[in-house]
């Protein structure tokens, strides 16, 4: 289990996150939702070691991760994707994956084979030898997920994976995430704005607003919650 306890993060005088606790199980799909500026990405940064919290702690399988660097957490199976994807533009698609496979201890030949398998799994086999900056937007996003899978994640943190995708693509993404959870046996945390996707995909929701937890529970419970309705739906009438 990946658990964050009483996390507070400040930027200058502003509290981006205040006293937030959350846990991600190895088998669940957890939705992290909230209006813009709620601190969702900051929370993913904390969980993945890119942001050290000013208060609170992160534990992985019960062990305190302390001030762990992002690269070490990634090698321990806590892997995130980026809102802006951030592929390695000058490397081929296959090499984009091989970097992570190398971090997991695979030699070059084994990494090449495994990258080919993963790209095949993601329906990207035909793109293996293209440069990372020569892809369509949707493909780029899928390579970003494939690159995360290369690290054999136990916990996969997806920062707005559906941003910019059309309805059909977003639905396909939902199926893909479920498939990944089943095939890789990993817990998935998804930051997502698309409520339809969230409702269909997530077993549990965690709602942030202005850096605080305002609701958590099953999607049905959360949607009945009055705090949620006023803070979230009130701000963004559907």
């Amino acid at each position, binding site marked *: 289990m990946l658990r964050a306890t009483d996390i507070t993060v400040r930027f200058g005088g502003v509290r981006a996150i205040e006293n937030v606790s959350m846990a991600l199980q190895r088998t669940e799909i957890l939705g992290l939702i909230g209006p813009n500026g709620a601190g969702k990405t900051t929370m993913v940064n904390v969980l993945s070691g*890119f942001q050290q919290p000013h208060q609170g702690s992160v534990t992985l399988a019960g062990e305190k991760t302390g001030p762990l660097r992002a690269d070490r957490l990634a090698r321990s199976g806590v892997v995130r994707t980026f809102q802006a994807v951030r*592929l390695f533009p*000058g*490397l081929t698609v296959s*090499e984009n994956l091989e*970097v992570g496979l190398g971090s997991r201890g695979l030699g070059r030949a084994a990494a090449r084979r495994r990258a080919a398998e993963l790209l095949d799994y993601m*329906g990207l086999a*035909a793109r293996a030898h293209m440069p990372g900056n020569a892809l369509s937007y949707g493909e780029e996003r899928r390579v970003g997920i494939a690159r995360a899978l290369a*690290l054999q994640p136990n916990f996969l943190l997806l920062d707005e994976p559906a941003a910019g995708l059309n309805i059909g693509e977003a639905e396909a993404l939902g199926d893909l995430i479920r498939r990944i959870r089943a095939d890789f046996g990993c817990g998935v945390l998804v930051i997502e704005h698309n409520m339809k996707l969230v409702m269909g995909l997530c077993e549990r929701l965690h709602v942030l607003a202005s850096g605080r937890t305002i609701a958590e529970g099953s999607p049905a419970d959360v949607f009945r919650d009055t705090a949620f309705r006023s803070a979230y739906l009130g701000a963004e009438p559907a």
Partner: protein
Amino acid sequence: MAASISDRIGWRPAARDGLRRLVPLAALVGIVLTIVLLAGMGDIVLQRRVIFCLIHVVAVVGLYIFMGNSGVMNFSSAGFMAVGAYTSALLTMAPGMKSTFLPDLPAWLAAAHLSPLWGALAGGVMAGLMALVIGIPIMRLSGIGAAIATLSLMFICYIVLGNWTALTGGQQSLMGLPSYVGLWTAGLTAMVAIAVAFVYQETRGALALRGSREDEVAARGSGVRIVRERLAAFVVSGFVTGIAGVLYGHFLGTLRVESFYLDLTFLLVTMLVVGGMRSLAGAVIGAIGISILTELLRLVEVGFVLPGTSWSIATPPGLGDVALAAAMLLIILFRPQGLTGGHEIELPRSKTSTSGLATTSGNTGTANV
């Protein structure tokens, strides 16, 4: 459909695939070998020019190992060359020579008299050790910070060696190095340096380093230990660059600290940038190309008689340096990836036509998924 496409693309006999991956190495070694063979037929003046060019190939390949893979600026090559050159000089010079030129040497160093090979290795190892010690604090820098730190390192080497009179003779020339470097020594060393750089860049550490070159944040997200990978490259780079310094000293037979200063620094960086710092081919082709350019300009600067006429041509002194800077400027402005564009010399993919077809049909097949 998707499965059949991946089958077709995934199907490649492993052995042929392995050979294909060696093509960039074979091409560069072939280029150097050709140059050595051609120069062997020329006169002694041409041979000396070619040896100089080959020494520069070694130095630029050394520079590439770190700068090309990591994308971090490095202006300290001249310092590593100096350390390699003086280390080998002090260990291989005849004790009689040393007592003449360097009377204040410590006794054990004054008596040391290694064979050229051991001296050369010691020179490389000393430069590599310096890279290790200096690299530990500075490898977390990138961008302008790294540029300033490595430039400072070069200045420090220059000032320390220039004032450590007991060891280097200070501002005076150190003479009497065994000059064992000929065409084949330089050529073979260049080929070995190219092979070292190639083997290194095929490691997973080097791939991880190229990932950090492309995007540091994403590389950390992919589990890359950036400082450690940079340090490894810096040490290998220091070793190879040190060996270039060794060749330099034992080719000329004389060392002056002034030789390892800004002119050399700028020359090596220009060679790499003009060739294309993101590929080994760029390093080799840049070193050879700029060597040819500077030789031609030197010819023009000295003045020569146009063949078949009585016109003599001589350009103002300093043209060579201006042209070097101009070459750098033009490349940065119009072809920032260098002459090679960051590509290695590769065979065209033999199955381009079929896989190209598969690519387009695969695209329509997967776009709507």
